[in-house]
């Protein structure tokens, strides 16, 4: 996955505008065999969320317990570290979801 600071910078305003938005879980799964960048976070849920402000988003679910993994569960978008990057790489932040 990219480690470019340019991409991080280019996405800022869009990402900033998506923090703190509510939605409900449409679908969920638990990723147990992750891609390289996410190896140290697995297992973790990935959810498709129907956003209150319209459209759907996909994201990691954080601060979760098994009882949160239900279709219809209300969630809110938060900003978190995307993954554990290399020691010299720029730090990526991304939208994730937290159960309400």
């Amino acid at each position, binding site marked *: 996955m990219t480690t470019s600071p340019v991409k991080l910078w280019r996405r800022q305003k869009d*990402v*900033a505008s998506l923090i703190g938005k509510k939605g409900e879980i449409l679908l969920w799964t638990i990723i147990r065999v992750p891609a390289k960048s996410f190896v140290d976070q697995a297992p973790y849920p990935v959810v498709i969320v129907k956003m209150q402000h319209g459209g759907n988003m996909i994201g990691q679910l954080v*601060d979760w317990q098994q009882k949160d993994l239900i279709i219809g569960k209300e969630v809110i978008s*938060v*900003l978190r570290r995307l993954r554990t990057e290399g020691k010299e790489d720029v*730090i990526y*932040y991304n939208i994730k979801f937290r159960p309400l």
Partner: protein
Amino acid sequence: MSGIIAYGTYIPKYRLKLSEIAHVWGKDATEIEVGLRITEKAVPGFDEDAVTMGIEAGKKAISMAGIDPASLQSVYFGSESHPYAVNPSSTTLGEYLGVGNNYFAADLEFACKAATAGMQATLGLLNSNAISYGLVVGSDTAQGKPHDALEYTAASGACAYILSNKESEIIASILEMSSFSSDTPDFWRRDGARYPSHFGRFTGQPAYFTHVLQESKNLLAKSKLKPSDFSYCVFHMPNGKFPRNVAKKLGFTDKQLAPSLVVDKIGNPYSASSLMGLAAVLDISKPKQKIFFVSYGSGAGSDGFVFETTKAILQKQKNTTPVSKQIVDKIYISYQAYLRQTHII
């Protein structure tokens, strides 16, 4: 006169019981809990850091203030766990909060008093009318070395305060402030070192107590007030014992101190510690109450403030998630999960 117009706090959801830590290292859990007067501490999620927590707290403060984030004209971010050694947390925070580009910004470090120092700097800008609104954030994901005494207390959290010179919006005026500073190497972390070092009992009397007590005496003298003039007092909380001792020494009662003692249930979130205690007090204050506040940062120094609440606080208290509510919104984790989440394994 300037003061606080809004505040926001964030405590991560996870808790590690001190008894769990004690069990791993073969220590007596009760002895430790009684000695430190802490039962559990707040642990960050795997993907949380000082900036992400600062954004959570900052958003809440902006919501309480009811202002456009672009009206903020300064951002000072105090932490001892800034994500970068060189790259400003303050502007990352500013960007994701929507502050725009026209603001003073800097990152501060002074152990646990980095953010209160930021408040004093902001007050300088406000009282000289260089700005109208300023944001100060204290946020830390404090690291404790496994098997070290600090492992029991090093915790995580964030506080955001918006200060202004707009009288009608102030919920707590700042009547007085001062600072007591020295070069006292009680607790330090070299560049590149993962964990801080500390000098055991030297962190007590010559460090915490000397600075907090002296600053407190100076502040009382400067403001011409006595402890009994205050409804509440707040001190930096490296553990549950020190603030209780210092309050007693100064002549404050248990009742004045109690509401601020968040440390018992969340540990010490460093730059957010004293500010979290202050927020817990502001959550329950009535108008026209005086609050005595002295922080402490190792190395060392103490920042003191005398606050007085206003009528405006009642309305704004309704627009917040109280500290007490966040304290009980928790998930207990194991020691192993704690090691994973704090990236030790």
